[in-house]
């Protein structure tokens, strides 16, 4: 079983709409990550989050993206105005320490129409 639960499993949204993807860790963890995987391609890093702030983000993670951990439990990824090219699987990952394995959820499939 994954150490994180992601919801929804599939999100279909019109271009230009906002989406929020959610990740709920099963237990307490320190490091949180979002990755994305366009169909048939490799998994790409988006952002890392530690101590309630972003510690690193990729070029993909532009001003349309944001993350937060509003209640100390859920970890969310928001895309403000979706584009067709945002269609992908989005994976949340957690880790307990630096230089330890990251463990992934089963992802949210985001389809932009």
């Amino acid at each position, binding site marked *: 079983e994954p150490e994180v639960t992601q919801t929804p499993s599939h999100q279909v949204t019109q271009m230009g709409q906002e989406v929020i993807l959610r990740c709920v860790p099963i237990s307490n963890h320190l490091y949180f990550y979002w990755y994305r995987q366009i169909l048939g391609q490799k998994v790409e890093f988006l952002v*890392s989050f*530690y101590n309630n702030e972003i510690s690193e983000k990729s070029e993909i993670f532009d001003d349309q993206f944001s993350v937060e951990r509003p209640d100390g439990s859920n970890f969310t990824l928001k895309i403000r105005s979706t584009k067709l090219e945002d269609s992908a699987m989005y994976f949340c990952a957690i880790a307990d320490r630096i230089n330890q*394995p*990251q463990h*992934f959820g089963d992802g949210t499939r985001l389809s932009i129409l």
Partner: protein
Amino acid sequence: GESVGLHLPTLSVQEGDNSIINCAYSNSASDYFIWYKQESGKGPQFIIDIRSNMDKRQGQRVTVLLNKTVKHLSLQIAATQPGDSAVYFCAENIMNTGFQKLVFGTGTRLLVSP
């Protein structure tokens, strides 16, 4: 630059055979590597990891080999089973002050025939 790549996009084997999946990385400063298995509709699942102070690490039916001289990783699966059919990714752990991120390879699809 940071890049991790795989030599073979698809590997087909018979049940019971041993499988070897290869991976090249380019960042000679990397010191931690992870293999993940991804089944259809699921997220990457941790299989085994290795640190740069080791050449070999064994798990249950899996072995990872690290050759730092040529920046090459391999994943060996013994007595491959149909349930091993999946896409396998190597990932390079890139570290900086206060953060880490994984750089994934393009993946190798392993097909196991009964």
